[in-house]
């Protein structure tokens, strides 16, 4: 086992893609850093917190990106977003086999205000454009900063989301909810609660991620290969949207009034929900598969 969680973005790329195959676009030596952060007299990074490029996965040409959670929590600024969008557009131009996004982000970089918000919306559009061009898009969420805000939405624009239990996926992050609605609503320091509500197991049971793996680079790589191979029609169809809407409606009705994830799991039919957080990935999948709310692929 080799932890994915503990790697930097630059270490994740060679751990997931075929050895030596990745060619980076706009590498750090090009020094395309954030002009906004420089104006604010804040630290910048030579890659603005994201690696983008073209590599191979299982021999196929797969475009990809890895967000660096250690730089401003992986937050998306104008340059960071433009790099993601440029990579996705080039993947369309070059008819890539697939796009693999190694996401770790708190969402929009608030320092860059509207430029960051627009950047995230452009990322979503570019992801859907890639899918419309028949290119499967797969998102991986397994970093310690999770995937929140605009990037949480972006992740769900992918055909498949792959998570580890340690990965987290949501709209508002724990601190944001506590700040906005009070500690009675959500105690962001309750780590077990945070993972029960946003972690990979809950997302899998709720149908928000389609694959759950152990925190292991080989497991993530194998899941990415399997996911890309399993996607027939990558484009988002009306039938897909209607099926997703039906799933969400059913899920909402099934879980109405339930605030504690363990109650939600019990409602889904999971036997002994209290045991779920302690199970390893394989044991969890065996237990959870029959009860998950399902989800769009």
């Amino acid at each position, binding site marked *: 086992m080799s932890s994915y969680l503990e790697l930097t973005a*630059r270490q994740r790329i060679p751990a997931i893609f075929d050895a030596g195959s990745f060619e980076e676009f706009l590498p*750090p030596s090009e020094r395309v850093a954030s002009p906004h952060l420089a104006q604010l*007299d804040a*630290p910048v990074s*030579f890659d603005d917190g994201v690696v983008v490029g073209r590599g191979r996965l299982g021999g196929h040409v797969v475009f990809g990106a890895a967000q660096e959670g*250690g*730089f401003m929590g992986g937050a998306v600024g104008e340059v960071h977003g433009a790099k993601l969008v440029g990579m996705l557009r080039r993947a369309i131009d070059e008819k890539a086999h697939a796009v693999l996004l190694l996401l770790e982000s708190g969402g929009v970089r608030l320092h860059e205000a509207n430029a960051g918000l627009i950047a995230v919306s452009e990322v979503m559009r570019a992801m859907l454009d890639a899918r419309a061009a028949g290119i499967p898009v797969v998102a991986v969420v397994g970093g310690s900063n999770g995937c929140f805000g605009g990037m949480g939405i972006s992740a769900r624009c992918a055909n498949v989301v792959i998570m580890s239990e340690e990965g987290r996926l949501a709209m508002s992050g724990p601190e944001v909810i506590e700040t906005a609605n009070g500690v009675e609503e959500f105690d962001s320091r309750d780590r077990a609660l945070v993972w029960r509500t946003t972690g990979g197991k809950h997302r899998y049971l709720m149908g928000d991620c389609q694959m759950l793996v152990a925190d292991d680079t080989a497991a993530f790589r194998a899941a990415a290969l399997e996911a890309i191979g399993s996607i027939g029609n990558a484009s988002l169809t009306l039938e897909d949207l209607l099926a997703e809407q039906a799933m969400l409606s059913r899920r909402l009705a099934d879980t109405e009034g339930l605030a504690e994830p363990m109650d939600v799991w019990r409602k889904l039919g999971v036997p002994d929900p209290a045991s779920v957080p302690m199970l390893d990935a394989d044991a969890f999948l065996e237990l959870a598969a029959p009860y998950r709310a399902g989800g769009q692929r």
Partner: protein
Amino acid sequence: METLHYRFEQGTRPLGGMPQLVGVVGSGNLEVLIEAAPLQGACEIDIRTAAVGFGATWQAVMADFHARWRLADARISINDMGATPAVVSLRLDQAVESLTGGTP
């Protein structure tokens, strides 16, 4: 932010290979970009740091670094978020090792 610049003449160890980036611009950490550059045998180091007023410490850490490696025709660029001198030294060594694979 504070910007610092150092140049050490007459290095003896030229660099080869593609530019490399090590480290991350996070709290108490830094990123080091190392590249070969035609500098008449010198090693130039550009630093952008969030910790203002530590020029003398940087000077000492950079002089130690140059004494260890004596790089020639090398450009090193640093984005720093308050890394301690020991962390800076380790990152610099990691950067050089990523290009040369060698030890001082």
